[in-house]
């Protein structure tokens, strides 16, 4: 087993990997950008090295700097988390050259599956149904217009190197094609240092179901059943669950079998995910394979009891998978809500700032994978995910009830978060009945929720008035000469500090 692992990531996923290493008795190295000196992952690791300025292109995405940190610290392996270099075959090549084990699949598997166009070809030739679209990246405006006419609108533009909704644009009108192409390419460039974009037919009302896979270096594969990720906003997953309400045991077995075949085709090693679109007749189409740990892996961990990160590490060290397919059981139901620093009342505008107070939910069946702390200044440079809240219940009803309870306990002040949004999703009748697709949030939910009145307005007003009243009185007392200033104020961060100006 490795004695020391470097984690080439930040935020909640870096903390997640660090926790697995600690539990395995492996020494850890964090890398951090200049704005992340006080971040949780920096503090949590056994060693921590600064790798440059805030923008990811100057720190977390610079292969040389990561490799240098690994060599300086004697790390034998690197865990890339998700995003950043996680699916970059150049990084995999470089690690191999430097004889540092990258915890993940081979560069070959990354190239095949990472380029979504090649992946489509590969699995298609193995008989897996895929969504109609191009296999070559699109670069010019003329080309996109031509292909869109060919396969018919609506279409989806996707970054070839993409994932996590970055560099993705849905286009319904021909007039939007060129501006959407520009935006998608620009976002793809910024997120993945690669502006290749391809095009796919957009399937109406699909559900997004994916299969979690594990493979070792000895040709063993297991799947850990499915996750449903249809609750998306702007094509980005926001709520995930396992099991899916639409997946039958037969369908689960069939999807699992296909997913393992796809993995076997590239001698896949480590944790990966095959994503499928499922139409209203429960036909499933291969969408893409993610050759990394996913944001939503905790829901699978909670229903199967398998620690996916530890399996990744063991497999990377050459061990055989510790579980066989027969050992895998889905027990109960788990739901994850991604907490973003975004303002749900202002069209999910990113909302960086300082977390002035933080109260985290506890009690039975609740898991919080967080990258924040009280006093944390959420940087503007990175993905706005600040935490993932996961609830387990013996069935979906209990999981939803528990999630509602946990969300109500979860208080973050100083920045806006998606917590209020999630509470509304958990209370939504369509979500509760399991009746939704990937367009549900953007098309149905917001229309229904728009007119909603807030509860307890009277209490809000009264409390604010009392707070102002007590402050005014304190000030009045303090101004009276010869009198004591009153008890020591317990106030902290009583005004919201502004965002530090960056040079």
């Amino acid at each position, binding site marked *: 087993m490795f004695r020391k692992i470097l984690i080439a990531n930040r935020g909640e996923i870096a903390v997640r990997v660090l926790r697995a290493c600690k539990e395995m008795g492996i020494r850890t190295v964090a890398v951090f950008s200049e704005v992340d000196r006080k971040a949780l992952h920096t503090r949590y690791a056994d060693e921590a090295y600064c790798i440059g300025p805030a923008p990811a292109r100057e720190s977390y995405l610079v292969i040389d700097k990561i490799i240098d940190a690994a060599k300086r610290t004697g790390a034998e392996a690197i865990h890339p988390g998700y995003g950043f270099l996680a699916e970059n075959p150049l990084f995999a090549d470089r690690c191999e050259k430097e004889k540092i084990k990258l915890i993940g699949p081979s560069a070959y598997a990354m190239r095949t599956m990472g380029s979504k166009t090649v992946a489509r070809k590969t699995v298609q030739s193995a008989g897996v149904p895929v969504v109609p679209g191009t296999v070559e990246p699109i670069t010019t405006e003329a080309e996109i217009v031509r292909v869109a006419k060919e396969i018919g609108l609506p279409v989806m533009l996707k970054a070839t190197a993409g994932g996590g909704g970055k560099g993705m644009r849905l286009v319904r009108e021909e007039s939007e094609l060129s501006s959407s192409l520009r935006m998608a390419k620009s976002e793809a460039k910024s997120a993945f240092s690669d502006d290749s974009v391809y095009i796919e037919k957009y399937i109406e009302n699909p559900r997004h179901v994916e299969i979690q896979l594990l493979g070792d270096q000895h040709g063993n594969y297991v799947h850990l059943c499915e996750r449903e990720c249809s609750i998306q906003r702007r094509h980005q997953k926001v709520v995930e669950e396992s099991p899916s309400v639409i997946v039958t045991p037969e369908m689960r077995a069939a999807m699992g079998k296909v997913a393992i075949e796809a993995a076997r085709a590239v001698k896949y090693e480590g944790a990966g995910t095959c994503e499928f679109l499922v139409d209203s007749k429960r036909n499933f189409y291969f969408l893409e394979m993610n050759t990394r740990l996913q944001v939503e892996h905790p829901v699978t961990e909670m229903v199967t009891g398998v620690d996916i990160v530890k399996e990744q590490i063991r497999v990377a060290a050459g061990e055989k998978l510790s579980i066989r397919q027969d050992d895998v059981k889905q027990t109960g139901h788990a739901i994850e809500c991604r907490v973003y620093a975004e303002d749900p009342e202002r069209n999910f505008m990113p909302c960086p700032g300082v977390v002035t107070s933080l109260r985290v939910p506890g009690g039975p069946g609740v898991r919080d994978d967080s990258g924040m702390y009280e006093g944390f200044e959420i940087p503007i440079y990175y993905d706005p995910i600040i935490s993932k809240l996961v609830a387990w219940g013996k069935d979906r009803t209990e999981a939803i009830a528990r999630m509602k309870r946990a969300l109500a306990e979860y208080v973050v002040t100083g920045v806006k978060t998606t917590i209020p949004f999630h509470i509304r999703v958990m209370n939504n009748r369509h979500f509760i009945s399991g009746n939704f697709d990937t367009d549900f949030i953007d098309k149905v939910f917001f229309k229904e929720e728009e007119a909603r009145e807030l509860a307890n307005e009277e209490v809000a007003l009264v409390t604010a008035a009392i707070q102002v009243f007590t402050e005014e009185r304190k000030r009045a007392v303090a101004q009276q000469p010869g009198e004591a200033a009153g008890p020591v104020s317990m106030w902290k961060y009583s*005004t919201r500090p502004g965002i530090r100006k960056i040079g």
Partner: protein
Amino acid sequence: MSYVATIGEREVTISVEELGGANYKVAIDGAEHVVDAHQVAGQLWSILYRGASFVVDVTQLPTEEYEVLIQGDCHKFTLMNEQRRAMIRAGGKGSAGKAMLTSPMPGKVVKLLVKVGQEVEAGQGVIVVEAMKMENELKSALAGKVKEIFVGEGEVVESGAKLLLVE
């Protein structure tokens, strides 16, 4: 002491009188109740009101705006005492026919889509601001001419920073 809260278009008057022992007599638009209000820490209050228990987080923004969090709902309003409100009423209002576009978040100006002097339509994209890896195309609130641009491409801006004036 009397306060006026403004929620969207509505105005609500709240009076507060201290009774001792963390008890207050409050009246909302005239209806009186006794509130047991304990400040737990900083902006966190425990409120017993009309037979129910509430946990309330009050955040005061730099202006007299308040954001009050109760059970996951965020209430936004301005609140000030009556004297201060009278003072402000005596002052002027903002100018009409102009639209100042400000940045709704801290971020980086990625692209200016218009130039000074250019005619724009209401809803036309004029500037792209990136924050947290998402690009956001900001649109003009009204039709008119771009009078002034306050930022350049590549510039990092704070939330509320002036970006562009359309007249």
